[in-house]
């Protein structure tokens, strides 16, 4: 009985086209070998696909339509979707810089300035603190924990705390400034001072990450390089520029890239501290405003801003990484 079955199976397989059998065999071997790898990856693929890829594709599609609150499908009102595909009109409108579409170029410039200033302070202060904390001293661990703390506090908690500090009439900052006879500006009003305030808050929030990353980088530089440089006659400043900075380069380049991307899209600090203030408006907050407020919630323009932000960051990351690579090849 058993023998017959096997015989039949063998008989059945043989007449099939040779290539087909071989291919099936290869697929079977491949699955036998790697099925668990695919099984392990599958949940992540599903989640990432559902939460990132699909919404992204939908967003890109919206940029070619005139979708807004008035023409989107609304099951509550029993209304069908009746938005139209408008081609590149949204892009043309936004890129024209028309104030009705958010003065794109001005806001982009402000976003770049905001990112540049914030990351420069993040890096500078983070490096300074990392250098201080990298030398042996008492209570070093305590200092490290205290300096990492701003990072551990949720951004919205810090944002509200800072709002109170910046309050023009009752805030601690103006009280301090006033008590030493300095001017006490209206920090969070409709003026460029608000931008200074949000930059201060964002710097405070972003320094711990830079500090921790750079501290790790500093510790990876072998101590005998400093000793060799000292014997070679390098002053402390020369040791910093000739050993420390080149030694930190791999870490620096990564954290600066990350810092720029995060700051470029730093929504909570600006929105929670100043709300909808044209003086602190950056691309991401404008996209939010456009999406959730206004006479008609303009999903199409908001999506267009989203895609433009993504494009700017992609171009930046590409150019940045290429520049790094060519420098490394030297």
């Amino acid at each position, binding site marked *: 009985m058993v023998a017959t079955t096997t015989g039949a199976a063998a008989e059945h397989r043989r007449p099939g086209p040779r290539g087909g059998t071989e291919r099936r065999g290869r697929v079977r071997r491949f699955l036998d070998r790697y099925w668990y790898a695919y099984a392990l990856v599958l949940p992540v693929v599903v989640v990432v696909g559902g939460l990132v890829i699909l919404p992204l594709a939908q967003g890109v599609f919206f940029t070619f339509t005139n979708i807004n609150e008035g023409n989107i499908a609304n099951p509550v009102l029993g209304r069908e979707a009746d938005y139209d595909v408008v081609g590149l009109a949204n892009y043309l409108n936004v890129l024209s810089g028309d104030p009705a579409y958010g003065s794109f170029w001005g806001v982009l410039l402000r976003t770049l300035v905001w990112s540049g200033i914030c990351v420069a302070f993040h890096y500078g202060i983070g490096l300074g603190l990392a250098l201080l904390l990298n030398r042996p001293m008492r209570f070093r661990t305590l200092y490290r924990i205290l300096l990492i703390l701003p990072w551990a506090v949720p951004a919205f908690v810090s944002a509200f705390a800072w709002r109170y500090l910046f309050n023009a009439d009752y805030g601690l900052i103006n009280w301090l400034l006033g008590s030493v006879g300095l001017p006490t500006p209206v920090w969070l009003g409709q003026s460029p001072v608000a931008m200074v305030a949000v930059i201060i808050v964002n710097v405070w929030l972003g320094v711990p990450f830079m500090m921790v990353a750079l501290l790790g980088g500093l510790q990876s530089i072998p101590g005998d390089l400093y000793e060799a440089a000292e014997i*070679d*006659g390098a002053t402390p400043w020369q040791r910093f520029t000739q050993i420390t900075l080149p030694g930190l380069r791999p870490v620096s380049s990564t954290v600066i890239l990350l810092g720029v991307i995060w700051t470029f899209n730093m929504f909570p600090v600006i929105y929670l501290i100043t709300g909808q203030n044209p003086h602190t408006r950056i691309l991401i907050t404008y996209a939010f405003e456009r999406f959730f407020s206004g006479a008609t919630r303009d999903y199409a323009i908001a999506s267009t801003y989203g895609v433009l932000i993504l494009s700017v960051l992609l171009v930046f990351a590409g150019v940045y990484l290429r520049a790094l690579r060519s420098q490394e090849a030297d």
Partner: protein
Amino acid sequence: MAGVSYVKASRVYPGNPPVRAVDQLDLEVNDGEFLVLVGPSGSGKSTALRMLAGLEDVDEGAIHIGGNDVTHTPPKGRDIAMVFQSYALYPHMTVGENMGFALKLRRVPKETIKAKVAEAAKMLDLTPYLDRKPKALSGGQRQRVAMGRAIVREPAVFLMDEPLSNLDAKLRVETRANIAALQARLGTTTIYVTHDQVEAQTMGHRVAVLKDGLLQQCDTPRNLYERPANSFVAGFIGSPAMNLKTVALTSEGAVLDGLTVPLPRSVVAGHDAKTITFGVRPESLRLTGGDEVGMKLTVDLVEELGADAYVYGSVDIGGTAERFIVRTDGRTPPSIGSTVNVTLRDDNEVHLFHPESGARLETTKAPTA
């Protein structure tokens, strides 16, 4: 060019009790000399070198280079160059930049730097690699770059901290000879730290043996070998190590199993203890026929090295099995597990030490050097 002297120099690490890493080191290194500091790990040899480099504080005493007191001078003011165990090459600089870095910091004109780097590179066969980064080099090449960096400086003193320990055995032997030849050619005073006594014996004009921060002996390799100042040096210098046993002393001499070695009257007379530390090198022992007086050695292991063989075995002395190593002819080694008869080649080829202090007890044999 300069001599170096340590004057009762100590490095004391704070603690309870404080650790005296280098303890009252007194050492004179002559101009142009190749001095090797050798000792087991923790002996303070590297610390002593780093004190000379200015990388460690000198807590007591003083250090002079070329007659100048440099005890509190920072490293850059000492006119020294150091080769590190890890080489410590600057990873982001090319070989040429690494070698010229010290000159660049001293604002030496570019053309001069280039010429000096080229000259050193030629000396070390590094010319084709001048534009490479250290990570693109092999271990041996990196080692040469580290040497080159020191040579380009033309310092008064070279300091080398185990520069060969990251090389494989064959390359190490080769590089050992190259460094010794280079030093002879340049004639620069060199202090070289190693834990390898073979390196020490083959490279140094003189060798200083350290243990627990204390200088044990500083002498020529031959004198260290033939007249070790104490039992530590006797056991440390020489490979395989000297057979060192503390044995009973009678009026006839030292008692080793069936063998009684007559000792010089001068030693026995001046020595009041009942025991004595008796040392004999493997090559001073020989296997002999059963009819001669000797120790019964049970063979545990035979290392055949071609021309020679080292026989490791144990001898029953006063009830305990003591291990002995005997050098013998490589063509007819005894088999493992057999018992052989061992005796001295020459009753004068023995080293005697005080059983407690370990200090050498002089035999009548005249020193050779």
